[in-house]
């Protein structure tokens, strides 16, 4: 190797030129040495993978709690003339069948567990901390995130937060709902520490979120490869960047809110307690000032994944790159001024009107994205791999979720739909139908890159079918029930709703089945999957064109120099050498700006 090369782009080679370039997954000697290596790693890929495993485990726990909720709702709880209780299925299962209060308690706690785990431990960290961590440096052509040790710290902080959450769950769980509304969070379970632990968990997890976001913002600003300007970045990076900004700017507010909540609960300082002069609505304002932006922390990464799947899945340059990029920033900006729409019933009329109007604003950039994706599909060569099926499902489900959001943003309609199953269905269509669907699609798409193994496409498609059908069967009936007045959060209901509740519960079973099919597919791939080529999908972002599957420890053999845009399928269409294998793209065509 020539020593002339030792300028900027030679940095990678300086010390490692003749060493063996092992995959990042390669063990380091013995079993314990490897474990220790993973535990102390500052490699963004390993940290991303550890996050992925932890988040999927939490997803399993939260999913079990959801099934418990659906189990209880399979039949209405009825107390007959003799005082005999029937239909309290969850209570019976846990041996509290004779007491209505006790079985309702199980329901409330299962619901809270589901909400807290899914929001704080799954969806908020899901895409940024796992796929984002893994891919951000790869897509930017960097060797790592800006602050690798901070990245590792954020992982351990996540573990610490999870520890407190699970500690609380093992102590019987809490009955506050995931929103910790006062006075539930200040008065329930008096004399027990479990609420304190749960609030502490959310507080600690906030730090993990801030550190991840801070790291990503700096990484995007400072570590782009030579030749990669802001508008040469893959749109996945734009999405993660918008997310990271919200994480940094919104999370501190929940930090102080939860501190004040702990003060309120432990010292009764009175700030949220009307008996002492405080105001519980203040808590709601504080809470939603964070938690509405964080809704976009949950959905923006899903949209980020969509950009990659749609473009690679239809072999077409993404339509309106800049519009999609700027709509990301617009969503991030608007997210800070719409928190009041969670509180239409607990604030003044003028404020409600203003927040309603602002809420409609956020529909615009979201719709820009949807229209751009659909335009990208137009005349594309759409392939129906599992991940692209998920991308198509996202378009369908997120559109339903988004459009029903407009119903809820309209004041007159919202007063009827407030606190009904309509809302439950709406945010599940966005959070699960949007983020989780995109997340599962993303895991399939990058699975070969992360593990070096191909997954079985048939198993993936079967799983997709059950997830898609199961999801709609679970949540579409909830729109119907909600619009007919079924209130949310209750452990029982009048018999008129029984049919749709049973429909919904059966749907949740199908959904769970589909997810287990995916789990099986992934485990089978790890055990006996075919070896993945560097670029099985013929995509054009750097992690596919310049890194092996799985990538080497320092990501790239040479520091990549960007010579084509992330979606230039029109000029650098990769040649398919045999089914499922693509050669690296040709050099940029004459006339392209990268030539």
């Amino acid at each position, binding site marked *: 190797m020539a020593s002339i090369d030792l300028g900027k782009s030679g940095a990678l080679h300086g010390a490692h030129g003749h060493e063996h370039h092992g995959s990042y997954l390669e063990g380091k000697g013995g079993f314990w040495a490897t474990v220790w290596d993973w535990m102390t790693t500052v490699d963004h890929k390993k940290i991303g993978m550890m996050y992925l495993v932890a988040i999927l485990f939490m997803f399993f726990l939260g999913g079990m709690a959801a099934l418990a909720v659906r189990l209880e709702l399979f039949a209405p709880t009825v107390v007959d003339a003799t005082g005999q209780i029937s239909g309290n299925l969850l209570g019976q299962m846990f041996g509290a069948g004779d007491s209505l209060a006790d079985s309702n308690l199980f329901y409330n706690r299962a619901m809270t567990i589901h909400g807290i785990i899914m929001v704080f431990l799954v969806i908020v960290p899901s895409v940024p901390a796992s796929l984002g961590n893994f891919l951000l440096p790869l897509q930017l052509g960097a060797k790592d995130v800006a602050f690798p040790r901070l990245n590792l710290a954020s992982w351990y902080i996540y573990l610490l937060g999870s520890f407190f959450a699970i500690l609380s769950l093992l102590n019987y769980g809490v009955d506050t709902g995931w929103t910790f509304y006062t006075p539930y969070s200040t008065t329930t379970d008096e004399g027990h520490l479990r609420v304190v632990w749960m609030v502490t968990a959310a507080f600690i997890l906030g730090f993990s979120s801030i550190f991840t976001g801070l790291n990503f913002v700096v990484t995007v600003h400072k570590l782009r490869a030579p030749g990669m300007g802001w508008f040469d970045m893959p749109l996945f990076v734009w999405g993660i960047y918008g997310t990271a900004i919200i994480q940094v700017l919104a999370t501190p507010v929940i930090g102080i809110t939860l501190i004040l909540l702990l003060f309120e609960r432990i010292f009764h300082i009175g700030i949220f307690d009307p008996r002492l*002069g405080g105001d519980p609505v203040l808590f709601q304002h504080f809470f939603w000032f964070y938690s509405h932006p964080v809704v976009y922390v949950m959905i923006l990464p899903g949209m980020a994944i969509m950009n990659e799947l749609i473009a690679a899945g239809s072999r077409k340059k993404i339509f309106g790159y800049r519009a999609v990029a700027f709509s990301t920033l617009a969503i991030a900006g608007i997210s800070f001024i719409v928190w009041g729409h969670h509180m239409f019933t607990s604030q003044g009329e003028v404020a409600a009107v203003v927040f309603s109007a602002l809420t409609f604003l956020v529909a615009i950039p979201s719709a820009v994205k949807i229209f751009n994706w659909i335009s990208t599909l137009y005349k594309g060569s759409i392939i129906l791999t599992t991940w692209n099926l998920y991308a198509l499902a996202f378009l369908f489900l997120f559109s339903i979720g988004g459009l029903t959001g407009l119903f809820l943003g309209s004041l007159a309609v919202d007063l009827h739909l407030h606190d009904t199953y309509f809302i439950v269905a709406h945010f599940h269509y966005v959070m699960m139908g949007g983020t989780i669907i995109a997340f599962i699609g993303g895991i399939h798409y990058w699975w070969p890159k992360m593990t070096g193994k191909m997954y079985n496409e048939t198993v993936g498609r079967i799983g997709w079918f059950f997830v898609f059908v199961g999801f709609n069967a679970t949540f579409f009936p909830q729109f119907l029930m909600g619009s007919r007045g079924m209130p949310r959060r209750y452990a029982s209901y009048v018999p008129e709703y029984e049919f749709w509740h049973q429909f919904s519960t059966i749907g949740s079973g199908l959904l769970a089945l589909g997810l287990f099919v995916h789990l099986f597919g992934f485990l089978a791939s790890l055990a006996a999957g075919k070896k993945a080529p560097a670029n099985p999908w013929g995509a054009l972002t750097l992690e596919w064109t310049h890194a092996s599957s799985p990538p080497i420890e320092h990501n790239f053999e040479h520091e990549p120099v960007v010579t084509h845009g992330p979606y230039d399928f029109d000029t650098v269409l990769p040649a398919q050498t045999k089914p499922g294998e693509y050669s690296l793209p040709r050099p940029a065509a004459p006339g392209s700006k990268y030539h």
Partner: protein
Amino acid sequence: MATIDLGKHGAHGSAPVNDDRPYHERYQAAHHFVDREHEFDAVKMGVWLFLSTEVLLFSGMFVAYAIFRMMYPDAFLSGSAHLDYRWGLLNTVVLLLSSYTVAAAVRHAQTGNQKWLQINIILTFIAGLIFLTIKGVFEYYKKYSEGLLPGKFYSYPYAENVPYEPLWWGIYWGATGIHASHVIVGMGLFAWLYVRSRKRHFGPGHYNAVEGVGLYWHIVDIVWIFLFPMLYLIH
């Protein structure tokens, strides 16, 4: 393969073994940065982002203060009357002086003046200690023994007929307590800086950590600059 490059881009920024230059001169950027300037820029941006989260954290406290000050001005006046502005003023002076010493520490790190770098780090640490001592002994302890405590622990025997005064004490203890915890963290950081400066880690080529901690300390100061008039000087 050229080995001359090991100094600049060696594995994980470590230097060749036989290099006896001081650490801050032979320090190389972490392996994913091009050079020290690149790393310096990134670290600086990270620190500023972190400071913005600190501002947002305290802003929640300030919003709570503003709302309840508007709702219960009498409670705030009567509560504030228990505070002695002279201790607050003294602490303000202490923190302002420490802002000077920490700025001087950054300057001496930039110029490589090791002796005065260490002296200024120690002085700033001591200023933090003085602040906490004044706060703890002459203010917190006094309030504690008088029963001027937040919420349910409020047991001031001569409670005048001002409703909701305990709420004021909740805000007083909450705001100053969160601030004091930042002072403690800052002192920990200065202890860490001192240990590293003893090993000659900082100098013209490498003073990220000093500057970052310095910026953090300024934020702690600024928050106090707002807390002091809000809590002690209101009429």
